Each structure stands twice: as C-alpha cells, then as structure tokens.
C-alpha cells in the first residue's frame, strides 16, 4: 500500500501542499481534513467578497479531488474530535496547515466596550462563517486600527455603495449591515509611520476607484527605502480624492492608549503621537485589525518550541507544519504555495518508499467531497440577483445538505 498523508486544514497552504505531493507521487493517499464541513479556509472566509478573481484559485484546488485523487474529510476537528496522536497513528505523515484563527488584541483599556470589535470577528461575520458572532452595531464614525491588507479590505467594504458590491458573494445580512449603517467617516490608524505600514500599494491604490469617498492622508512622512517609497507613492496618489462624501482619513505614527466610552459604549479612541502629544478621535465604532494568533485545539506553541527544524516545517518525525500555522499570520496566497512546494519535497524524501498506514476509517457525520459539492451547488443555485453565491451560514444546514443523497 502506498504511503498515506493527512493534511489538517484545507486553506491555501494545505491545498497547495496536496497538489505538490500528488503531482510528484499520484499514488499517495492524501486526505485533506477540515473542522468545517466546507474546504478552502481563508479563501472562502477571509479573502474579500469583492475580490472574486482571487477566490478563483479554488478552481485549481477542486482538481485535487476531481482529478488528483485527494480525499476531503470535512467536519472533523483535530484536537477535539480526534487527537493529534491518534491521527498520527493512522497516517505515515501528518501536516498541520490549520492556519491561525484567533484575533490578536490591543490590550488597552476599553476593549470590552460595546462598539469595539476585531477585524477577524467582523470578517468572519461578513463572510458568514458558521462560528461567527453577530455583526456589531456600526455607527457613523468608524476607527480602524491597523495598517495591513486586512484593514484595507475592511475599509474598502465599508466605503462601498450597494452597486459597488454587485457580483460579490456577500450575503443579505452582511449587505444590509454595510448599507444601512450610514458610515460617514473612517479613520485608518497606523501605529508605525506610513513607510513601515504593511499594506500592499495596489490595495491602497484601489481605494481611488471607490465611487463615494473623499480621501485624506495625514503625516505620511518620507523614506529612503525603495519598497517603502511605493507605499508612500500609493498614498500620495489617493490623497485628495474627492468622489463623494464618505471621508476616509489615513493617520500614522499613533500609539493606541485607550478606548473611551459612556454607558458601556465607545465614544472615542485615544492615541499618543510621535511627539508625545495625545490625540483623541471621537467615534462610534472601533475595529482592530492587528493580526491573528494561534487557534485553540492544537497546541501550536508547544509543537513549535519542540520542533526538529521549524524553518523546514518539520515538527517531529512524521509531523510537519506549513502555511500560517508554521510562519505566523503573514503572507499571501502565493507565499503559501512556495512554502508548500518546498515542504512537499521534504516529505516525499522522508517518506521514501515506506508506507502502508491506511488512513482514517470512514465515520458517520463527516463530509466528503461529494457532500461539499452538494453544499456548493446549493449555494450557487441560491444566489440572489447581483450576487454570485449565497453562502449557507449554518453548520447544521450544511450538514443536512451534504448528507442528502
């Protein structure tokens, strides 16, 4: 029997790894496991609804199941439903590609006020992730703390009009939330100077095309670094945009001190600027987009500390890590591809000609690829006018559709 490999997580890093493994060794048994009944991780639940072109990578990933012989095992949480040790007992190699799904917090006073939410929470809810919380009430003035691409995604979605959301897979609830809030002003706050911001210049430039915004960039400063200069150029290019009334203001070099409130609700965010002066920005909502950290069911910190060779993705004999789980919450879809191709070579080498562990036995309640395709078909068929898909947001309904045969 050929060797068997379990990949925990069906986001881009898990899928690219399976692709590389099966390209080299089509005879391998490769099982892609996800805690959700549906595959593709942040491509489905992170990448913005108005970037459908980027989501098209899933067409490649579908081939894993349709042509390359990989199996999808959905609705199985490793660490909860099956222990990692048991999983390792069933496979010749196990790879953790489980991403990082918990939001980092600012750890300043006021984070528990009503009106404060993390970008992760909001993005999961906008994407109708089955485990998401309700969308927080959104006021007229929104402060977004963070200078990564995720912050820009949020700002763009908040600033778009109904027509600008046509063609997306944004659901009815999230669409209504974005449209009815009547956001008038969004302040985008970076702790670092603009030169050290993390967003890609193209992401910033895209804001210029929004139909209803007025954009101001304050205190972007200067730089000697050519890469950073591209970011400053992109900011300069959007500064002064006057296409409408929604005011977007970029501010840099502001260290968050506290979020202030009244009667349990946010009223302002307080910062210190580079010269030590306090700056208070009145607002109704604060969204923090400052990164992600480890999920709970897999003891990532312990595994990484004991890793045999973390750079190569080797945690222990027969146990590997890739993608955000290995590298931390940095890097885009192509970065995971490069990572996966290197790790695949390593795993194939380690496996050699050995093998024979049979993989997980079939169990009730799991979702296979045919089950996912039924969910997919139901979502595509249910699309409302102006939308390309209508996501099923509830796990129970997903399971019912998946199991319907």
């Amino acid at each position, binding site marked *: 029997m050929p060797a068997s490999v379990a990949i925990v997580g069906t986001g881009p890093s898990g899928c690219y790894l399976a692709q590389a493994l099966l390209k080299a060794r089509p005879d391998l048994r490769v099982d892609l496991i996800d805690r959700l009944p549906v595959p593709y991780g942040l491509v489905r639940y992170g990448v913005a609804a108005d970037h459908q*072109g980027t989501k098209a*990578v899933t067409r490649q990933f579908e081939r894993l199941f349709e042509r390359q012989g990989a199996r999808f095992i959905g609705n199985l949480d490793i660490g909860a439903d099956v222990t990692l040790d048991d999983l390792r007992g069933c496979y010749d190699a196990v790879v953790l590609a489980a991403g990082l799904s918990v939001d980092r917090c600012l750890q300043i006073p006021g984070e528990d006020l009503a009106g404060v939410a993390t970008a992760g929470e909001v993005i999961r809810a906008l994407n109708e992730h089955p485990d998401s919380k309700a969308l927080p009430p959104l006021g007229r003035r929104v402060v977004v703390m963070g200078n990564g691409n995720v912050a820009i995604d949020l700002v763009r979605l908040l600033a778009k009009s109904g027509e600008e959301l046509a063609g997306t897979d944004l659901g009815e609830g999230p669409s209504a939330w974005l449209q009815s809030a009547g956001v008038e002003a969004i302040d985008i706050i970076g702790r670092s100077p603009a030169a050290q911001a993390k967003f890609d210049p193209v992401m910033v*430039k895209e804001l210029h*095309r929004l139909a209803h915004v007025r954009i101001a960039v304050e205190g972007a400063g200067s730089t000697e670094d050519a890469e950073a200069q591209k970011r400053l150029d992109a900011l300069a290019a959007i500064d002064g945009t006057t296409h409408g009334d929604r005011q977007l203001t970029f501010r840099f070099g502001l260290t968050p001190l506290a979020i202030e409130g009244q009667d349990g609700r946010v009223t302002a965010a307080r910062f210190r600027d580079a010269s030590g002066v306090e700056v208070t920005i009145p607002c109704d909502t604060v969204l923090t987009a400052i990164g992600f950290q480890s999920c709970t069911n897999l003891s990532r910190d312990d595994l990484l500390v004991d890793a045999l060779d973390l750079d190569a993705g080797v945690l222990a004999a027969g146990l590997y890590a890739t993608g955000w789980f290995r590298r931390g919450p940095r890097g885009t879809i192509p970065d995971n*591809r490069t990572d996966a191709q290197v790790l695949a070579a390593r795993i194939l080498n380690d496996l050699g000609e050995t093998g024979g562990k049979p993989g997980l036995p079939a169990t009730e309640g799991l979702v296979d690829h045919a089950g996912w395709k039924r969910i997919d078909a139901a979502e595509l068929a249910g699309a409302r006018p102006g939308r390309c898909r209508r996501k099923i947001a509830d796990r129970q309904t997903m399971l019912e559709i998946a199991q319907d045969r």
Partner: protein
Amino acid sequence: MNITVLYGTETGNAEMLAEDVAAHLEGAHEVACTNLSDFAPADFDPGQFYLVICSTYGDGELPASAKPFAEAMEAEMPDLAGVHFAIFGLGDTEYEDTHNFGSRIIAEMLQARGASQIGERVLHDASGGDMADDLAMDWADSVVELAAQQMKEDA
C-alpha cells in the same frame, strides 16, 4: 507540429491552464509543458512553436515564475529571429490600470528580440464570466492552425 507550452505563474492558475492546453493538443502534436522559471532564453528553438501563458502580479508586473526568465532575457539579449510564439494572458480587471500587463511584457520582450507573434494576445479576466479554459482551447486551436501556415511559408 512540435509545441512547447510555457507558463509564468504566481498562484498556479497559469500552470493549470498550461497543462490543460498541453493535454488538449497532445493527441495531434508533440507537446511539452514548461515553467518559465525552468526555461532559459538559449533554449528557444525555431523548430518549436511556443504557446506562452502568463499572469500578472503586483502592480502590473510579471508573476514570480516569469521573473528569472525576464532577467535572463535582459542579460543575454538572445537573437530570436525565426522563433514563433502566441500568447495568452491571465489577469483581472479589478486591476483596471494594469490589466494583463504581464503577458504584454513577455510579448514585447520576445518581439524585441526578433520573435514573431502569431495571432492576437488573448486576455482572460479573473473577474469576468469566462472560464480561462473555454477561451484558451479555442485560442490554442486557432494559433496552432495559423502557425502551421506561417511556419510553412517561412520555411
């Protein structure tokens, strides 16, 4: 005909498409499929017809796997007279101002060294309604036919 499908990719879409195009042409032709990152300018051979499939990244730049090839072209300045190619671009009209620049860069680079382009540069839009496969198979069939005539006339 001897055909080499070359692809430049960043997230793998062009690679998948190149493999599909190669598989589509295989029965009737001798076909090889190669990543531009594994292809050197000195490898060009007038006896082959080149089908290039290339995406666009960053701000209208070449995708990662095409960059080493572009650098080598720049450094080596090969003479590509007699070489025939056709080109298919992958891009996204979300990036309005730089739509499909990657394939344009490659086409101009090859032409500047004397290679002849067969047919129009066909552009896919990831945000559009068409599947890249649907466009690319028709493109491949038509440029292979054009190339057969052209290469016969040239010979």
